[in-house]
């Protein structure tokens, strides 16, 4: 089944599928981010795939790599009982097309990725912070975000730099 997915997807979108990998029986396909919406709509509607369930959507920060971030999509098909992992690579400051028009569940997931990684999604209806306060500075799940930081709360040490470790 997994080979069928990759070969058929390659036939249909020869330009979009960049890399195909398999590890522990899980298929990962790296795709071009510009083609995400048509590709995912096809994956959802085609009866051979019918990926009607977006299990998960998350970001990964590969600090030092170019492009720096991965956005990872885990698709599942309730009818065919198969899974697929899609990945797009995105550089800091670039944005990814939003998948809210394909699966509504992408809404909160994309907000979370924006909140914790600072990756923006084009076409998202309400891209705002979800877990952190609105006025929070920085994106905590980035690898260059310090693990401990002391908030400067009083004026006498206002000019002291924050402690940064790790």
């Amino acid at each position: 089944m997994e080979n069928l997915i990759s070969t058929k997807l390659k036939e249909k979108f020869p330009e979009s599928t960049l890399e195909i990998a398999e590890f522990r029986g899980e298929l990962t396909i790296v795709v071009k981010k510009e083609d995400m919406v048509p590709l995912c709509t096809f994956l959802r509607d085609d009866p051979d795939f019918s990926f009607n369930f977006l299990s998960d959507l998350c970001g990964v920060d590969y600090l030092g790599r170019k492009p720096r971030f991965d956005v990872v999509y885990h698709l599942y098909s309730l009818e065919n009982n198969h899974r697929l992992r899609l990945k797009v690579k995105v550089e800091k400051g670039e944005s990814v097309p939003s998948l809210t028009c394909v699966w509504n569940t992408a809404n909160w997931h994309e907000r979370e990725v924006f909140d914790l990684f600072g990756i923006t999604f084009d076409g998202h209806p309400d891209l705002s912070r979800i877990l952190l306060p609105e006025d929070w500075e920085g994106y905590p799940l980035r690898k260059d975000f310090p693990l401990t930081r002391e908030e400067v709360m009083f004026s006498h040490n206002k000019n002291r730099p924050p402690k940064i470790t790790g």
Partner: protein
Amino acid sequence: MKPQAVNRIQRIGTNTMVLNMGPQHPSTHGVLRVILELDGETVIKATPDIGFLHTGIEKTMESKTYAQVIPLTDRMDYVASLSNNLAYLLTVEKLLDIQAPPKAQFIRVLLTELTRIASHLVWVGSHAHDIGAMSMLLYAFREREKLLDIFELCSGQRMMTSYFRIGGLAQDIPEGFESKVKEVLETFPDKINDYENLLTKNRIWLNRTVGVGKISPEDAMDWGVSGPILRGCGVGWDIRKSNPYSGYDKFEFDIPTGKNGDVYDRYLVRLEEMRQSLRIVGQALDGIPEGDFVARVQGVVLPPKEEVLSNIEALIFQFKLVVEGFSAPVGEVYHSIESPKGELGYYIVSDGSNKPYRIRVRPPCFVNLSALPKMIEGRLIADVVATIGSIDIVLGEVDR
């Protein structure tokens, strides 16, 4: 009628009121805040506001070794901590390509099913309490105490168990375990019947739940809803059946489904799930195989204590494991289980070091909560409380 009065009536018709519900509202099960836009008593728009319990668990996990992550998983869905342990450990075991021995698998299944019952008991108690059936809370928590006793017997902890470890269990099941589980198996069916007698045909209960918080199966899948809510819509998807893990294919059980996708059907599904869980527990208890409780994979699992005290090699292995952990192969894996709330998945990216490069938790409560506006918009404000209760959220997992 004076023109002023006409204006006022029109203003009532066109203007809406914004009501802030939570985060300290008792029916929001923790610290959920919902901003409701109301026209009279009808909800026009609902905006959940979450994040009050955000502690950065995923970030913390990146600086822990693989074994040190286990206690953190307890603290997400804290009423079903063993399910969290299991989901994480199965993912790590998939990454390392090891398998727990049959005995550990049986005990894992047995305890996660007891966890499912405990989680559903918390749900039925607090949900009924929200709607006005006060006594249910006391009954449900009384019975849950019996299950927590079993967890305490195994792990020394009532809630933050961390009993499952990489490759199997922390220790063998203690003496008296089987008799305690047997007692639960004997007494529980009657208790579930009692809940049914109290609620299932109760007129107030029916009025508050039937047709409330409806969602269609198509919408539910579109919003990523899983677990008892999705099954309440009539979609019989359960990961224990579709992708059996930890030896679930050896057990006989049914997947209860509803029809209407309303709060009442979710209630029926969860009650039936408790009965099915008891069935699985009974089969698991009868069939616990002989053997070791942990896969003795050198360099991953701690050597037995007697060996550590008598053998220098084993002592070195133990020391190295405790101090620096083990290195996992480079790669990425995703594994999900059917937790009491729905699909609980872990995605681990390993860069070959002793710490996970990235752990992502797919929290079922977070995703199910995102469908809340879909369920309550256009309904009355009193239904909001019933609907939030029926989603069965644990804010520790929503916010992480």
